[in-house]
């Protein structure tokens, strides 16, 4: 592994971490598509700031992008509040228009400089190590590393300082407002943070990957835990993991790094989606199946108890009668009887089913009424 490779992975990992922090709250607040809108809409802000400063590394670019990002949020809110269109349509109207303006500005007036549309959309992480920060002849490493670290630090500070407020505003906005925590201010602060992160990251990874890193890892983390603090850490962890493995995927395929990182995010989410311990598709299916059998066994014990020691017990508790009375298929009934026997709920006397003590207790508990 060369130094360049290490630096690229470092930048990618920091980008992923910086995106996952605000992303967690976007995902929880059902505003994931705002990351898509903002990461596209900051383009005209970037272009104008670029024309003003003539450089792609000026802090003004961050400020310009962030300002436009917050404006986008306000604009969407404004359009929505006219009640002429719904919120999703409002988002879908605002950001393509702003993005189009940015693309046209670039195509018309900045075609020859580094700022070209493909780079904005797709990013070029492989170039990050070439843009170095040199102070007094000393090479301090790639500039992107410092920009991203600053933004990541800002994210960490924001989330730690306002953790309680964020938590409350996310899960109970009304209570937050009642307690005077100003959820609206917090909302715009979060949006500003998303914008700054998107601006800082676009140069390295492009606007689409910003969406992947903001939404994917937190969404996966959301399936793994019910606690906000764990979700934040898991989101950052998954993001960093995806960034590094994405780099190596790109290395192996000789393909776009940003694209590969988005792909690994997809793979990671798919894995969690299928195999998460409690909420994955497999676990849910298994639980449903188990519940089906548990319920059937319970039904069987109740049925047996209802007819226990009654004259019709010989008929009702006969194993062949189950499909009549409980409307079970033959195979299913046999399976339930076997499972219930194994669980020690019933026993057999000849072809008669009888309850064990445990089975009777289960049936009694099941039909207790108050």
């Amino acid at each position: 592994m060369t130094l360049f490779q290490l630096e690229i992975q470092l930048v990618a990992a920091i980008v992923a971490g910086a995106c996952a922090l605000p992303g967690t709250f976007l995902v929880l607040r059902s505003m994931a598509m705002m990351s898509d809108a903002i990461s596209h809409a900051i383009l005209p802000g970037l272009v104008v700031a670029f024309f003003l400063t003539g450089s792609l590394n000026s802090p003004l670019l961050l400020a310009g992008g962030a300002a436009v990002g917050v404006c986008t949020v306000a604009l969407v809110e404004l359009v929505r509040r006219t009640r002429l269109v719904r919120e999703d349509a409002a988002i879908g109207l605002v950001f393509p228009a702003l993005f189009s303006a940015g693309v046209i500005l670039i195509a018309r007036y900045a075609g020859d400089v580094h700022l070209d549309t493909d780079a904005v959309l797709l990013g070029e992480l492989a170039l990050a190590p070439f843009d170095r920060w040199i102070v007094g002849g000393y090479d301090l490493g790639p500039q992107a590393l410092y920009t991203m670290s600053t933004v990541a630090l800002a994210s960490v500070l924001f989330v730690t300082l306002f953790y309680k407020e964020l938590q409350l505003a996310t899960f109970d906005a009304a209570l937050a407002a009642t307690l005077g925590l100003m959820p609206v201010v917090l909302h715009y602060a979060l949006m500003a943070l998303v914008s700054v992160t998107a601006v800082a990251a676009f140069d390295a990874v492009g606007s689409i990957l910003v969406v992947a890193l903001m939404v994917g890892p937190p969404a996966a983390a959301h399936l793994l835990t019910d606690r906000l603090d764990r979700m934040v850490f898991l989101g950052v962890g998954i993001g960093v993991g995806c960034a590094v493995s994405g780099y190596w995927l790109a290395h192996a395929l000789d393909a776009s790094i940003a694209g590969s990182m988005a792909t690994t995010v997809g793979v990671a989410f798919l894995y969690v989606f299928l195999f998460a311990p409690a909420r994955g598709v497999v676990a849910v299916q298994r639980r449903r199946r188990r519940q089906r059998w548990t319920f059937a066994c319970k039904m069987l014990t109740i049925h047996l108890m209802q007819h226990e020691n009654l004259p019709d017990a010989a008929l009702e508790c006969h194993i062949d009668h189950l499909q009549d009375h409980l409307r079970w298929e033959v195979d299913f009934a046999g399976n339930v009887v076997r499972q219930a026997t194994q669980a020690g709920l019933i026993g057999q006397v000849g072809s008669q089913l009888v309850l064990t003590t445990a089975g009777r207790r289960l049936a009694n508990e099941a039909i207790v009424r108050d």
Partner: protein
Amino acid sequence: MEELLTDYTLRTVALGAGLLGVVSGALGTFAVLRRQSLLGDAISHAALPGIGLAFLLTGSKLPLVLMIGAALAGWCATALVMAITGTTRVKYDSALGLVLSVFFGAGLVILTVIQKLPDANQAGLDAFLFGQAAALVERDVVTMAALGGVSLLMVALFWKEFKLLAFNEDFGRSLGLPMRQLDLLLTTLLVIAIVIGLQTVGVVLMSAMIIAPAAAARQWTDRLGYMVLIAMGAGALSGVAGALVSTSAARLPTGPTIVLCISGVVVVSMLFAPNRGLALRALRHRTSNTRLQREATLLDLYQLARQHAAQDHPHAEATLVAMQPGAGSLRRQLRALAELGLIRPVGKHEWALTPEGIAESRRLYSERNQP
């Protein structure tokens, strides 16, 4: 204009862009009404890997082949979004953002792999990012027309069912209609509408062509039929306008130009449409506000007049000001009332009701004090 009829390229471009506007306007109407605006965004981004894979597998750049690839990928993306929201607690917006960006990223990987292939003739695939109307040729337009025609025909055939789907799905189900299958059909048509436009507008901005014509049309009418027609017209108009402008000028990407055109149409519609338009709404608001204030002033004067035997007894302006603190425009209202012949000035600062004014006040008074 004459050029449009004679110049082959211009004619092809205009036809293609117009077609895409018509189809996306019609299907977009349903998407917007069903709150699926952003699904279009996900589908169009998701088409990218489909295009790349179709090319990689077949080596063909036939529009139909690429469009089928794009449609399959878009369709998979939709199915995935539904699966994720249906089986886990991940919300709709997160599922959209995730699927959109992951598919797009995978598409990038495939495109970059294609670029590195030895002597791969990949020129033209890049155009799918931002669209390139100038690259449209006749066979593209023919494919677009065929697919678009079929989609529109389906919309016409299933008009009643789609209308139910958009407005009252449960009622449709209670009628015994196969709503799930209809939903599937309509989503498939939406995918086709998006795929048709990819070459002209590009995957990044195609969603705007789904949302914007419908959002503009919504302002002009409350009827689904008219809305679809207006959306088709608006889509076609901005499609043709944007494509022609971008073809005529150098370094003007087609997709963004078309999107700016249609966005302009949306802004105009939101401001000036009758009934819903913001500008007219504000104007109406002001007119009725002025009328209400004027009537309030008249009634104030009437209240004062009722204290006297002669109801045309004049009263001082200062009294009226005291009765309506905060109404800064009292002078103007009084002048307007005088112009209407309902009151008349007496001396310098006093006003009295005219006989018409008394009649009008009585009418208003009884109207407002009805049980």
